[in-house]
């Protein structure tokens, strides 16, 4: 069976949930082979094996010192050497860029924002902010596919998880953009936004940089916190929590929108959520058009009551 390369997302050596989803999807196509860049493959491989990785290719952290291109060179090289059937990455902005460059190198095509994939490599996409569903495939070369987090439910299956060193001689072009500093703005104890099963977001309706009404509900639900651009632009919540067209795309089981009107650019980032709950004092707010459950009211009274009720039922 041909290998299917899966680029591993990890933070401080911990494998992200989306990678277990990709390994699950990879098993439909062939034999999953994880590609790990940076420190920690030795300790992380157990988790990868638990989701079916037969091989774990481990490449040095030097590849992270430059923007995107080195990882694309690594993936393209491995895909060639191992005659891979496909390359899967998670559909984050950076990984989509890696996917694009990898596909150029392989002379193949790239599919982005895929929400499902079959063993025959037919990909389902959700486009136009979730309004339209398409099916597509790559018809020449090794398909490179960027899959959205929370799309394919992860299922365990044991793999050998055999560790193998992988290296690549970086071209001059790949080292043209050098990362000289990494600035970590905020890293809380809450689940990662794009991966969370539940997301609670606040908008302009929150009214101030006191986001505690949003955070309290999020914490009682074990959710990640998101924000609309209006809230981010007002300086109420950090930029990396913005949900929407120019922020993160999330697809959780439950999305709670507090004081968010539901502008098209916000919807583009959350419309594929499985359940949507909205609290807004304006009965005409467009967010109610896509809500499974909506409350017309002041979020400053409704959300605390909801938090209290959730806590009571625990």
């Amino acid at each position: 069976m041909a290998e299917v390369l899966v680029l591993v997302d990890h933070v401080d050596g911990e494998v992200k949930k989306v990678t277990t989803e990709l390994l699950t999807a990879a098993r439909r196509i062939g034999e999953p082979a994880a590609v790990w860049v940076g420190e920690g493959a030795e300790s992380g491989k157990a988790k990868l094996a638990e989701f079916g990785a037969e091989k774990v290719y481990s490449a040095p952290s030097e590849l992270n010192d430059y923007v995107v291109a080195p990882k694309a060179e690594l993936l393209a090289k491995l895909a060639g050497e191992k005659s891979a059937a496909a390359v899967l990455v998670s559909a984050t902005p950076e990984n989509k860029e890696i996917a694009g460059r990898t596909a150029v190198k392989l002379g193949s095509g790239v599919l982005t924002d895929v929400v499902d994939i079959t063993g025959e490599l037919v990909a389902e996409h959700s486009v136009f902010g979730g309004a339209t569903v398409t099916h597509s495939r790559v018809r020449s070369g090794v398909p490179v596919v960027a899959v959205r987090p929370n799309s394919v439910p992860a299922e365990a299956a044991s793999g050998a998880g055999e560790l193998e060193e992988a290296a690549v001689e970086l071209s001059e072009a790949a080292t043209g953009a050098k990362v000289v500093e990494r600035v970590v703005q905020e890293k809380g104890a809450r689940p990662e936004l794009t991966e969370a099963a539940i997301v609670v977001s606040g908008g302009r309706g929150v009214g101030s940089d006191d986001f505690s009404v949003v955070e309290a509900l999020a914490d009682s639900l074990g959710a990640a916190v998101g924000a609309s651009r209006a809230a981010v632009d007002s300086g109420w919540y950090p930029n990396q929590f913005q949900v929407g067209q120019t922020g993160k795309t999330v697809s959780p089981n439950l999305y709670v929108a507090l004081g968010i009107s539901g502008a098209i650019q916000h919807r583009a980032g959350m419309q594929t959520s499985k359940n949507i709950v909205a609290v807004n004092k304006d009965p005409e707010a467009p967010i109610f058009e896509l809500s499974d459950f909506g409350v017309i009211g002041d979020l400053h009274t409704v959300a605390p009551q909801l938090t209290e009720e959730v806590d009571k039922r625990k």
Partner: protein
Amino acid sequence: MNIVVLVKQVPDTATERKLSSDDNTLDRAASDGVINELDEYAIEEALLLKEKHGGEVTVLTMGPDQATDSIRKALSMGADKAVHLVDDELHGSDALQTAYALSKALGTVEFDLVVLGSESTDARTGVVGAALAEYLGLPQLTLAGKVDVDGSAIRIQRATDYGYDVVDAQLPAVVSVVEKINEPRYPSFKLIMQAKKKPVEKLSVADAGIDAAQVGLANAATETSDFAPAPPRAAGTVVKDEGDGGAKAAEFLAEKKFV
């Protein structure tokens, strides 16, 4: 410093929504294309850099005849001239073919910097900037929230999951911008009038030295077999808060087994 800004014309997302409500006026508007929102930020950034460092700003668009509207808009914001890559052979090109064609068209212009949006509102692949850097063999400075140029050195802040990376490179380079980078200006009446006289060069596939066997629907590596409207969301329940709104929402969450 000479800058090329890549501008894509896309269907207006806002009017499209009203299309479904069957409003004739907005129906007409919906058939109009607009500049991809993020490309206005790219144009603004190019203009700011020009104001600081001198040089010329050239707009490059690949698209059908109608894309002229977006080109004029870009010129009326203050860009100096435009190149319009327009050819029926390009119809149906996918993201990588688009990047390839744009890389060839860039070969006809002198530039120190290419600036583009990080994502279009219609296809949203977000791969054109990276693929373009790959084709051109130039440093990839994408997802920039801040750009500083000093002589031949360029530094950006690249948006990441955790905050941002500071990235250094030498010109020429490819920069894509995120929306927090600036606030695009509105065209002044004077600039709108001037824009009508600014040069727009039309470029065909042959003019740009593009291999026709590598572009267009028939030669695309990707293929879309079918599409359909997403299944409509079942109409939800909306209640008015009568002092029990939070409790009712909790009941809904319990029903759905979230609590």
